[in-house]
């Protein structure tokens, strides 16, 4: 594999051909916020939080899906990017019904962390207060659509890792929603293996275990790397938890 050299925020780095900008940035501890991206799942480039500025390209491109190229000059943060990232988180905040104080994932929530890291203090858009449902029909887990940010991690982990494809997205635009089967309640799903992977990869308190209360739902995502490594390399590494 050929080595590519590129410049990120004024510093020179080298990377493998075919690597994404995000992967290079992560290796060198350059912070780029992400939401839909999760190591081990396919990349979709949907949340747009990781957009970066590349010299010579008028459009902003997502770091997660853009492959490195020789001589790329990349800015991962500046006033413009920071502002857009703040606006994206603000849009998410206005879209759902997010109330941290009563949320099971409070203090363990990626959306909350994102809001802090991008410096969001005030949402200037009117809250949409959508009428969303809470599905508690599953014996072990709950899906609260009020807290869903439509990152589709649950859809992807169920399809790509568990292989059950219980989840998918129905509808479109602002009316999109995560569904099980033919929009059945989760408890009625005949294909759900009850593995709980979707719960663990969910960035917010939308998917959680039954019985937990405020701030108790910690998501353990280490299993993903463990399984992927085992599948691809036949190596059973120690399970990390990030």
């Amino acid at each position: 594999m050929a080595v590519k050299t590129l410049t990120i925020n004024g510093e020179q780095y080298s990377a493998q051909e075919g690597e994404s900008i995000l992967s290079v940035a992560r290796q060198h501890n350059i912070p780029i916020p992400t939401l839909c991206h999760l190591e081990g799942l396919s990349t979709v480039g949907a949340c747009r939080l990781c957009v970066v500025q590349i010299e010579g390209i008028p459009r902003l491109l997502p770091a997660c899906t853009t492959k490195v190229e020789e001589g790329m000059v990349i800015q991962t943060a500046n006033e413009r990017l920071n502002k857009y990232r703040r606006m994206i988180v603000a849009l998410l905040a206005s879209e759902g019904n997010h109330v941290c104080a009563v949320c099971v994932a409070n203090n363990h929530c990626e959306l909350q962390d994102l809001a802090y890291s991008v410096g969001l203090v005030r949402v200037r858009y009117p809250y949409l207060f959508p009428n969303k449902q809470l599905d508690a029909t599953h014996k072990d887990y709950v899906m609260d659509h009020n807290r869903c940010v439509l990152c589709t991690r649950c859809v992807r982990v169920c399809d790509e890792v568990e292989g059950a494809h219980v989840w998918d997205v129905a509808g479109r635009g602002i009316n999109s929603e995560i569904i099980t089967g033919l929009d059945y309640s989760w408890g009625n799903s005949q294909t759900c293996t009850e593995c709980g992977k979707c719960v663990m990869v969910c960035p917010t308190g939308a998917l959680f275990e039954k019985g937990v209360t405020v701030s108790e739902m910690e998501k353990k995502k280490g299993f993903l790397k463990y399984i992927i490594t085992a599948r691809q390399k036949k190596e059973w590494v120690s399970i990390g938890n990030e």
Partner: protein
Amino acid sequence: MTLEDLQELSEKEQLRQAEKKHRILYCSAAGCASCGSDKIGAVLKAKIKEHGLEKECEVVGTGCLGLCGEGPLVKLQSDQTLYQNVDVQAAEQIIESHIVKNLPVTAKKVDTTQPFFISQTKIVLENCGEINSESIDEYIGVRGYEALAKVVNEMQPAEVIEEIRKSGLRGRGGAGYSTGLKWGIVSKAHGEQKYVVCNADEGDPGAFMDRSVLEGDPHRVLEGMAIAGYAVGATQGYVYCRAEYPLAIERLKLAIKLAEKMGMLGNRILESQFNFRIDIRIGAGAFVCGEETALLQSIEGKRGNPKPRPPYPSEKGLWGMPTLINNVETFANIAPIIRNGSEWFAGIGTEKSKGTKVFALAGNIRNTGLIEVPMGIPLRKIIFDIGGGTPEGTEFKAAQTGGPSGGCIPKDHLDLPVDYESLSKVGSIMGSGGMIVMDSTSKMVDVAKFFMQFCMDESCGKCIPCRVGTRHIYGLLDKISKKKATQDDMVLLQELCTMVKETSLCGLGQSAPNPVLSTLRFFRNEYEELLQPVEIYQGEPGVVADFEK
């Protein structure tokens, strides 16, 4: 079938038509069909039979005759007389008076010396309204499939690509990327299978160019696709057509069947080594599927969610294989370029925008219909000469091009030459060719709101800026139109538009704010007239984000 056979067939068809004293053409495209042109066709045929003129006259259903606002239209090919608003009585008169006694029916006659007819240059529409779109013989009679025969037997793929590149043809779907360059990329890409896709998902509200081409001259599109397939090394093509065009789909299906039977499609095309099949895929009502990556997802039977580019479809498209996507009008230009040479084509239009462009002229304008003009023609000429201006008593205010991704062009810019660069300079785009004329009755804030509602409804929901951003832009426009907004909302509106434009995943989101931005640019006063001074209106206070840990 060889090239000689084809030419022989062509001559035979021309002779057959020349033997007829009259060819009576009636428009059977969707516009006139909805005014009952099928019935008119039946009346014409019955009358011809009644007078025993079947040998010397033939009645033919054709594609769009252009002047859609005045349908049903009937045309006598022999002396080029055009009749408008033809009802049953008029149809009878045409036969009894014009055909039998050689006395034209003056009451329904259209003045074909007016600019609407003489200021046009027809390449894409050359056969539209001249031939029976359901007959492959008539297409061959106007030198149809000659270009394909020449290409597969006499030219190398690289020569074909070079010819298209030299012609200066650019994609007619909106962005205007060089067609020759695109073909070159696909031909060089590696893949065991390659595909050619024709984008016929004409989703822009107010646009019906592609539909008219497919209904009036479907073989031209198939020929263009086959030539493209030969040039890039593909053996399979797909036409992705929207379900709202049942007549176009029907005609396409028939055209494919006839072409396969004649050996113009399928295996060993025109006795060469080239194989190419075309299948139809029908859309299901999603504007976003006009975006090429979403279109490919839809062909694969999935939700029409766009994918980030790169990788571009020309490298990784359908089922991960190199895929060439062009729209209907682009493919319709291919055969004439091959037949007449790239120099001929490059001689039409401007320095950077070559050839012609088909526009669907509609809205508050006298002559609504389908027109084809050379690139670079001033907007004024389209609207006031060809279109005849706005109706009595109303005043031209703006022309909207590019649909929900385009913008409004005001009166001050009427002398703008219509080409890719000039249109984008004023914040609009060429788009696929819808041109809607608005007069003083149109309120620009409402127009912007109309388009934003469209984009909001059509957003696929995958990326956040488009999914939620368009919803909030719509909300702000609604607030402004209801006179509840303040200057603060204007700031918010502008910010959101820029952000959605710059961060959205696909073309839909990136261009969704264009109608707002362009009306803000040229008609800002209409927004500001609706604003409340801050002192009077007590809006709800900004909400503090509830992310307390």
